[in-house]
């Protein structure tokens, strides 16, 4: 799986620490402080202009004290009442339509999604999760942005405010109510989505009995049969059967395999092929830190480029001292697994990208070596294990605990792993002038698989988090704006959130083509991004305006949620477990946004005459 940015450990992320990065919590507090001070100042200035200094000071003071006392007196019962109202309203506004749309999408999805790809599950999961995300976000948007303005318009809000509810209750209650509606929809969609994926992937084969040939051992005894299955779902499997007619091995094709059992007798077999196994997985990788050695064996920041436009992986040269070295951390007895013979082993998985500078022997793969090393004592290392790389797929290494350093027998945990649990894995390419390419997540310690269903649910939590955010933004915006404007505002927030990286790059000048005005000028005058602009007053003026806009963009970027970071679709699609700390981070971020937006929503609603 391509993992360009590995998620940080939760506490590091929250409090900061590594590399001088400021933690999420201090950053949140700073932003809250800045916004609060700004809001106070603006409020004070407005009041100053309208009522003079004394009253302005008094008003500001009262707003703050009232605000805090009201927020403190927020009542769960009232919030729940408002939430129930929001739920009822939503169902009256036929949110159920979203479900119909979702079922129609699933109904027709089979037309466009075949299963003849090398990774069919990946495609189906991507599709289902993406469709769910868009639908749920759209419903969240429509519900949240239009409800309060509709209440204002239909004067229902007057009925509500005659009851003893506070502005804060209304905002929070709405958010909660719509979240409940969204959660119900999301739950239904995810249930049927999962069913759709499992149902679409399900298939079986038959054994081609006429093609079965007997397998004999060196003594001429029949030890089983070999053959293949019928072609179903665009593929077939090679298989080997034991003498009893049950499968001993079924080749993995398109990331899955089957089991063959003999429902008849050994003489008159009746083969039954099971459904697919292996499509749905949640591998739990424990990644390490990657460093490179160049062809002379000296440390290098990266391997070399073989000219690929995509620079995710860099390469090491074969037949030289170049190597990729991973430092794994926290290795202990609990990471070992036991095989059928009762021997313990350390399960490592490695993804290798092979690059050939000449074709060489076409039918032979490129050879490499893997060895383990003690990071504190590089002389303490295991002998090289030679392997032929399976390009762009997972190479599995079950490293036994009993290893050799030359002739000397060594123990994996005692000799190679340091006391604090560190271990180095050194991978080299052996064939001259051929290359291996690696990125950091390409080698990992494979911990026992997690439940794929739970992983899927975690991905739904990712969607849920995005939904809650949209609802919070929508409700807050709708406290002061009318429906369509609130919707546009929220849509812009979502769009900017999805393209946050680009937005920040424009603001910081990393994106070629200049700021917003310059880009507009280039578009209209059909100048490409690289063409220089004339030195004139107009250009200078444009750049000044851009500078101001860029500063505004940078400030906005501080509070913009990064929607892409919430998405955990890729993990499920590629069959990797979603790290819990990522879920925790997403939930924490959402809680912070909801909290902040509630406060803003409260003050905004207070400015409306009706809610005072």
């Amino acid at each position, binding site marked *: 799986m*391509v993992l360009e940015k590995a998620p940080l450990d939760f506490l590091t992320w929250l409090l900061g620490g590594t590399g001088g990065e400021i933690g999420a919590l201090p950053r949140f507090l700073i932003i809250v402080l800045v916004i609060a001070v700004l809001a106070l100042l603006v409020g004070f200035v407005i009041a100053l202009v309208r009522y003079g200094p004394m009253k302005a000071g008094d008003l500001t003071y009262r707003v703050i004290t009232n605000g805090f006392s009201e927020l403190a007196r927020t009542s769960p019962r009232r919030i729940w009442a408002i939430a129930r109202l929001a739920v009822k309203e939503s169902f009256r506004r036929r949110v159920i339509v979203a479900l*119909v749309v979702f079922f*129609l999408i699933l*109904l*027709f999805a*089979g*037309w*466009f*999604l*075949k299963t*003849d*790809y*090398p*990774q*069919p599950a*990946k*495609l189906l999961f*991507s599709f289902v999760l993406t469709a769910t995300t868009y639908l749920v976000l759209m419903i969240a948007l429509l519900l949240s942005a239009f409800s309060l303005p509709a209440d204002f318009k239909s004067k229902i809000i007057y009925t509500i405010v005659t009851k003893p509810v506070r502005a804060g209750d209304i905002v929070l209650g709405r958010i909660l109510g719509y979240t409940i509606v969204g959660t119900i929809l999301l739950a239904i969609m995810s249930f049927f989505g999962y069913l759709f994926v499992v149902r679409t992937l399900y*298939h079986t084969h038959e054994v081609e009995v006429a093609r079965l040939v007997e397998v004999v051992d060196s003594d001429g005894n029949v030890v089983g049969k070999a053959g293949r299955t019928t*072609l*179903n*779902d*665009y593929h*077939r499997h090679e298989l080997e059967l034991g003498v009893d007619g049950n499968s001993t091995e079924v080749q993995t094709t398109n990331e899955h395999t089957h089991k063959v059992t003999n429902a008849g007798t050994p003489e008159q077999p009746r083969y039954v092929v099971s459904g697919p196994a292996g499509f749905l997985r949640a591998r739990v990788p424990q990644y390490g830190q990657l460093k490179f050695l160049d062809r002379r064996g000296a440390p290098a920041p990266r391997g070399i480029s073989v000219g690929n*436009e*995509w620079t*995710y992986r860099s390469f090491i040269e074969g037949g030289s001292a170049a190597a990729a070295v991973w430092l794994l951390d926290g290795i202990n007895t609990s990471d070992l697994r036991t095989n059928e013979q009762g021997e313990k082993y350390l399960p490592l998985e490695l993804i290798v*990208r*092979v690059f*050939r500078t000449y*074709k060489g022997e*076409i*039918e032979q*793969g*490129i050879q490499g070596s893997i060895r383990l090393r003690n990071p504190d004592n590089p002389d303490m290392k295991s002998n090289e294990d030679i392997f032929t*790389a*399976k*390009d*762009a797929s997972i190479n599995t290494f079950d490293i036994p605990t009993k290893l050799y350093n030359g002739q000397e027998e060594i123990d994996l945990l005692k000799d190679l792993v340091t006391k604090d649990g560190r271990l180095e894995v050194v991978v080299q390419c052996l064939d001259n002038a051929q290359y291996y390419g690696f990125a950091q997540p390409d080698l990992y310690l494979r911990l026992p698989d997690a439940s794929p269903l739970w992983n899927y649910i975690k991905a739904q939590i990712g969607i849920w988090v995005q939904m809650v955010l949209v609802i919070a933004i929508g409700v807050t915006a709708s406290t002061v704006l009318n429906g369509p404007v609130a919707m546009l505002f929220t849509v812009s927030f979502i769009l900017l959130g999805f393209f946050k990286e680009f937005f920040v790059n424009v603001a910081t000048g990393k994106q070629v083509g200049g700021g917003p005005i310059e880009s507009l000028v280039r578009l209209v005058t059909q100048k490409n991004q690289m063409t220089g602009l004339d030195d004139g007053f107009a250009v200078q003026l444009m750049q000044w305006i851009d500078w101001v806009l860029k500063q505004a963009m940078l400030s906005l970027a501080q509070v913009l949620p990064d929607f892409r970071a919430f998405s955990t679709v890729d993990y499920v699609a590629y069959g990797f477990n979603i790290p819990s700390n990522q879920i925790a981070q997403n939930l924490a971020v959402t809680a912070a946004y909801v909290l902040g937006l509630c406060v803003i929503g409260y003050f905004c609603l207070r400015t409306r005459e009706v809610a005072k």
Partner: protein
Amino acid sequence: MSERRSFYRKVAYGMAIAVLLFPLALLSSPASINDEGGKLARLRNDPDHPLSQASLGQIDPASETMKLATLGLRGVAVNLLWEKANYYKKTEDWTNLTATLEQLAKLQPNFITFWKFQAWNLTYNVSVEFDHFEDRYAFVRRGIEFLKEGEQYNRDNPHLLWDLGWFIGQKIGRADEHVQYRRLFRNDEDFHPDLTPDERDNWLVGKTWYLAGVDAVDNKGKSMGRKSPRIFYSSPAMSQMNYAEAIEEEGYFDKARRAWIKAQEEWEDFGRLPIEHSTGVVLRLGEQPKLEEEVKQLNAKLEATSPGLKEELVEEKRAKLTPAEREALDTPQDKRSMAQMELAYPAAAKLEVTPRELAERIGETEPAKAKQALQLAGEVERETLRLRYTINYKTDSNYDYWHTRAKLEQTADAIAAREAMFRASRTFREGDPFGAKQLYDEGFAKWRKVLDAFPAAVESESSTGDDLIQYILQYRNVLDQLDEELGESFPLWDVIERFDSEQKLQEELTAHQQRISGAKPDANPARPADSADAPANESIEASDANK
């Protein structure tokens, strides 16, 4: 009250639409490998009622739905998807790339360039990203299947049909991995379950697609667009030759002989085929001798209209030459000085009498014959032009070489020579250099006979010459093991002189040339490329004399 009724009506319509979509989904579901799809999909594939896009317009429901779903923003959607496809290709996400291409195909099913471009992408660019040859083959095949899907949407499109022929023939048959690809293709019964293993040769399968393309143009009124008719029509026969060549390489000599006989017939059929030149003149490549004869006869007829007049004209033109030019022309070619050589060629051109000049002069001297003469001159000019175009097209498609090659390869000597080469190579691999040498010697002797019988086979650029160089290089390896060298008795020195473009046999050639000229070894031997002119000719004569 009426407001409520109108609302209920709308709800009823909505419900009806939603309910109707379910049977629609079942009726229109596209065919897949496991089931034959809905009613419409079955009708589409029914040979009696072909409901393809080409015959009935856009009716693929999946494609239509997708186009409608974009709400008129198909262009934008297509743009986004192309971008995505490029991104997935960059990030080596092949599953998403192929899925995106499928979606694009639904959005622009009748955009021919899309099919060609993306099928090429899969077959040529994506396949090489994999390290294992079976994975590579899987993507070569996927590209071909993608193109076939395009052909389904655009039935009888000559471009797609021709490309299918090309991909199946050239990509599988000419890649570095062609040995493996051809083997996989032959064993790929899922790809062509209806063919026998013998018929599953990539060149033969490619040929059937080329022929389907030719049929679409000839019998179904489809246009081949800007594709050169010379290449378009020669492809099936070339595919047959490639097939013959390939199976010969694999050691099936009897079958290869039959294949070459068929190739000759097909090549001659191609020679009889009317092909439109870019100027609109219709040519037949096999008609060169006939055209030459016609031009000769017409010229004679024109000259006979007024006997002796042409010579008079020549004399007049000669009189207008400068004395130096006349002297240059009168000097025998091998005795001309450099200055004379420079003068002689343009002077000779000045003496040329064109048919029109002759006809005009006839008109002046004998007005009664003017019309006939002009008419004849026009015919000569027309036929000469046709002859020139024919020769050009023949040269471009190497027509004569392939014709000779097809005739040559089916002879008993050629088959024996090829077989000897094949066996020699195998014997050498099996560790018997003596046996290999003997087989090579026999084989090269046979080759000499073949080349003497068909000198045209090695007259100009030819793959026969290149093949022979490869054999000679293998032979040299054998000799190296036996501590021997290419001797004077080696019968194919002329081939080395002409075709060793990479100069791998340069040392041997220099030694050979010194031996036959009796000169001492040269410290800076001439490069064979330089020896392509005069010295090479001399040595050919010398080696001929040697035999």
